[in-house]
């Protein structure tokens, strides 16, 4: 395994005249937590969509595990080991939590429309139960055992976010993309989520690319931070360095009053 799991090179993406991303390049190291921050509309989610395959960039390339994935379909990227969660919940609302997570195992399972229905007379049952076992481990890890049979659409927001994380983890990804995993949560839920992210990074060895607005969390758990503004990369590096950068403070974090004056003067 190489040191760099994801290599994004000179990505540009435009919707008509709107340039969502302009020449963005960055590397994500294997086993790290990489955060993308920036003001709203900076192109953070567009960047994730390019990596997960929902958008195809106009130029540039994305290499995952030394493989060019720029033109692969999203489902092929799932096979390679890229999982993601969404900013606006995207669970399968009418399925049970368990089935939702089992969908994540889709690319790891083999039974199909012919062998699946012959449940008892084919390896399907064994396979289903074996994957069920592994899914239960994820359910256990994320502490959602009490809702595993509930219909996903009926759950509370915080739980749905966790189920979504579980579903992405079920893919057995090497890289997981989290789009605002803590949006709309209270402090306690945020702390829990931060713990889950750290655990899945350290225990399961999954590399994390995360978009998050809560600077406290970003600074605490990321190894590396990248700042986007108007589709351009401002800076990337250690959290402290990024925090201290003047441009970042101007664009996103905000300047203190006396600093602002200095700028003007």
């Amino acid at each position: 395994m190489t040191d760099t799991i994801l290599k994004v090179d000179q990505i540009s993406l435009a919707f008509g005249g709107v340039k969502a991303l302009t020449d963005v390049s960055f590397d994500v190291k294997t086993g790290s937590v990489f955060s993308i921050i920036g003001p709203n509309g900076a192109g953070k989610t567009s960047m994730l969509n390019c990596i997960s395959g929902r958008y195809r960039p106009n130029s540039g390339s994305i290499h995952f595990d030394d493989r060019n994935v720029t033109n692969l379909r999203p489902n092929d990227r799932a096979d390679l080991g890229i999982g993601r969660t969404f900013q606006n919940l995207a669970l399968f609302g009418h399925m049970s939590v368990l089935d939702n997570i089992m969908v994540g195992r889709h690319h790891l399972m083999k039974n199909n429309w012919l062998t699946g229905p012959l449940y008892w007379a084919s390896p399907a049952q064994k396979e289903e139960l074996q994957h069920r076992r592994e899914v239960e481990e994820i359910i256990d890890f994320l502490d959602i055992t009490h809702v595993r049979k509930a219909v996903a659409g009926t759950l509370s927001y915080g739980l749905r976010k966790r189920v979504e994380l579980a579903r992405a983890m079920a893919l057995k990804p090497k890289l997981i993309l989290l789009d605002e995993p803590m949006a709309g949560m209270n402090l306690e839920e945020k702390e829990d989520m931060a713990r889950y992210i750290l655990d899945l990074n350290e225990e399961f060895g999954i590399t994390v690319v995360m978009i998050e607005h809560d600077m406290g969390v970003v600074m605490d758990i990321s190894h590396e931070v990248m700042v986007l503004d108007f589709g351009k990369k401002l800076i990337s590096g250690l959290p402290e360095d990024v925090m201290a950068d003047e441009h970042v403070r101007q664009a996103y974090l905000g300047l203190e009053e006396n600093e602002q004056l200095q700028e003007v003067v």
Partner: protein
Amino acid sequence: MSSLAMRPCGDFRTSYKQDNTIFETKTIRWFTALVIGLACFAPFILDAYYLTLFIQISYLGIAALGLNILVGFTGQISLGHGAFFGFGAFASAWLNTSFNIPVFICIPMAGFLTMAVGMMFGMPAARIKGLYLAIATLAAQFIIEDFFGRAEWFSGGSAGSMANPVELFGFAFDTDESFYYIALFALVFMYIWGCNLMRSRDGRAFVAVRDHYLSAEIMGVKLNKYRLLSFGISSFYAGIGGAMYAHYLGYVSAEGFTIFMSVQFLAMVIIGGLGSIKGTLMGVVFMVLLPEALEGGVGIMKDTSWGNIPMVVDGLAYIKEMAIGLVIILFLIFEPEGLAHRWQQIKNYWKFYPFSY
């Protein structure tokens, strides 16, 4: 998608296998087995009229389950299901008479043939959605209907074609009593097939495509493959149902497989409950028995002193069709989730009585 609360006290699951059954509880399983067991004795008790009704429920039920897999589980739409049903009927008769293949092999073969045709006409489904797909499948309906009229080598043209009865080890299933067993077997087999499909990998993929296709794709589900496969499986069921219809009646003519039949299948699925396997069967039973009940009711009315109204007695055929339309509208307004949902609510009512939940 059962909630824990529906399980009786003390019914604990200690392995994933126990937790992954088709039927929610043992009682339901044994009850279903008992009903199927008793149904085996029906020909000794019931007369041919009721057996005919059951056979009708069987072949329509199989085809309707196919449509429910497409519409209810995968979230596509098809207005051509009646034509696929007809294709299965002609295909089986054609395979049997032209190639002398035994009928009991012809029926599954007709299923696969219809599947191929269904996937061909389902190809637009990979590209278009909703109303546009409805129109594309409507085109399939008319193209296939036209094909029945013109392809004399296949369907016998306007004269229709003869279908031999099912024969197994020299025994011909040519009476209502004997065909009843084939209908029962096929119904049970195809419904178990459907239940198993929906609890294994591809069934989940179908529902995932319905509920959120974008995240389904991110989860590794090939959208186009599953949209097309859903059409294939739906047509497979339609083909099996159609083939049984052909070999039961012994004669197939193109007039029956019109858009009206397609709409009727849709009505069954909507009334029964989209996305519910047992609901499909309920819907079919309802739709088959509704006209019969009306006819029976009018028959009783006719003999009374007050009920012999010419408008009702002579207009029975129209009343039947109007009743179907009315029922669909009423269901859409009052119970859009179908009979399956109503049944669940009745069960909940008894379960939690005297509390409402």
